[in-house]
């Protein structure tokens, strides 16, 4: 598989299917693993970095779940390629920096992504569409079992899996759920919800993970604690919290729908109008308008479009995606024009 092949298909997590997929975009489980005694990537020399990469490549061969995967060495990728992978949520910003012996293993469906030599030797993730953490856990647990047969993971009975940062020690697991909460934002209840999430030892981040701003009413909620609780228990806890947030968003949507229907229809259809007719549009404005369009789709106000089309637009209108589609570097202004063109063509109904 080549990177450009990804352009022609929809990532599993963007399909807009699965439980509660009106509010929950995707569910992701990430596991951090390290090889025993070999220095963690930030402390490793070239030889040790190479050793880790080779060991993972070897282990991959005997893992049935990783049969249809491709390994990309970060050294071989240019800045647009890297940005493209970040936009698709297949790797982190951190992984794109200092590329020595860094690699990314992804499968054809973009369900599995394994970063080699990021902050830890191995950072694997499984993504699912909708509210589906347990399914993601089932898949990643099996991959982890297979890899554990081939690799000697750093592990202590008392402290579990050993990671570069002590905030990940224990299960090495982070479960994240991407939520679309336009009604809680519009009704100004979101700060109350975010404060409650923080109190319960969970974190909220923006669309692109750590350190990113919440844009387009997207919020990523994940567990903070990784030690002292079994994986299933952590997932149960996240699920419990997410169910409550989903409930609150639904109530806010119903409230707006019954009390301010005209206002809501106006905002949603104006967004649709701008997207269908704009000739220059920034990615920020695109995300904000698409968010309203998606709400309109969820509420049955926009019948001409499905969730999948809108989800896809969120990703393909990002800067690196536009440049991959056009197959050349584009300036900001050129991108704003191409973006508007792409949106118009996709929304022709």
């Amino acid at each position, binding site marked *: 598989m080549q990177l450009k092949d990804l352009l022609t298909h929809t990532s599993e997590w963007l399909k807009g299917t699965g439980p509660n997929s009106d509010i929950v975009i995707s569910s992701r489980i990430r596991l951090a693993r*390290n*090889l*025993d*005694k*070999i*220095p*963690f990537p*930030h*402390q490793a020399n070239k030889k040790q970095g190479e050793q880790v990469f080779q060991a993972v490549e070897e282990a991959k061969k005997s893992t049935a779940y990783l049969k249809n995967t491709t390994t990309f060495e970060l050294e071989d990728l240019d800045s647009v390629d890297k940005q493209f992978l970040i936009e698709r949520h297949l790797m982190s910003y951190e992984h794109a920096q200092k590329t020595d012996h860094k690699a990314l293993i992804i499968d054809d469906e973009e369900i599995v992504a394994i970063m080699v030599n990021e*902050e830890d030797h191995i950072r694997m993730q499984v993504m699912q569409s909708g509210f589906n953490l347990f399914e993601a856990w089932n898949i990643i*647990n099996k991959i*982890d*079992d297979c890899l*554990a*047969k081939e690799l000697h*993971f*750093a*592990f*202590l*009975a*008392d*402290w*579990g*899996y*050993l*990671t*570069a*940062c*002590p*905030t990940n*020690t*224990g*299960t090495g*697991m982070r479960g994240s759920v991407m939520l679309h909460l336009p009604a809680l934002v519009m009704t100004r209840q979101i700060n109350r919800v975010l404060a409650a999430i923080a109190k319960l*030892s969970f974190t909220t981040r923006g669309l692109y993970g750590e350190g990113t701003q919440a844009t387009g009413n997207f919020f990523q909620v994940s567990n903070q*604690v*990784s*030690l*002292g*609780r*079994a*994986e*299933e*228990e952590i997932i149960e806890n996240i699920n419990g919290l997410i169910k409550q947030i989903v409930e609150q968003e639904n109530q806010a949507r119903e409230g707006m729908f019954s009390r301010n229907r005209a206002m809501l229809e106006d905002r949603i259809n104006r967004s649709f109008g701008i997207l269908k007719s704009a000739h220059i549009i920034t990615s920020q404005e695109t995300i904000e308008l698409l968010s309203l369009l998606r709400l309109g789709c969820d509420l049955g106000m926009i019948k001409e479009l499905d969730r999948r089309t809108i989800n896809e637009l969120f990703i393909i209108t990002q800067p690196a995606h536009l440049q991959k589609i056009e197959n050349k570097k584009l300036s900001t202004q050129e991108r704003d024009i191409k973006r508007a063109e792409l949106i118009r063509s996709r929304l022709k109904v």
Partner: protein
Amino acid sequence: MLCDICAKNQATVHLTEIIDEQMNELHLCEECAHQKSIQMEQQFGLSDLLGGLAEFEKPAQEKEPSVLIKCLNCSLTYAEFKKIGRLGCSECYGAFKKYLGPLLKKIHGSNLHFGKSACKTGKISAKMPGLQELRYQLQKAIETESFEEAAKIRDQIRELEKKCLQNSGEEKEKDAA
């Protein structure tokens, strides 16, 4: 008003600090304020936040200065860990054990792992019946401060873990043969 730090110059910068819900007002001269802002900048960021947490955990009767402790496997010192917030390798966990235990507890509210084990088969429940249960008992014993009981349970857990690793080693040899 004179500066609260140097008590020489006129205070022109007024700062409110909140530490542990205690509010402090500081009135500083420009020079001392500059020093203070450098200090504050240095204190920020996750690594320093972690470093800050690690600092609190210094046992009261410390004989050897913690900063000199070094991991023999990767040469990272505890002082470096405090600075960068990242450990150097799996062996660091052993080298800095006495400081990491309390730190992990501070971060996670617990310093005892539950859940999956790196036993090579991954089939922890089939291979090691009762391990989870033992861990649960251990936590209970620690909570009720029954330390003798806790020590016994911990030994049992270690024994089971060791057996598991031996078994998987044998299995691997068999696989290889």
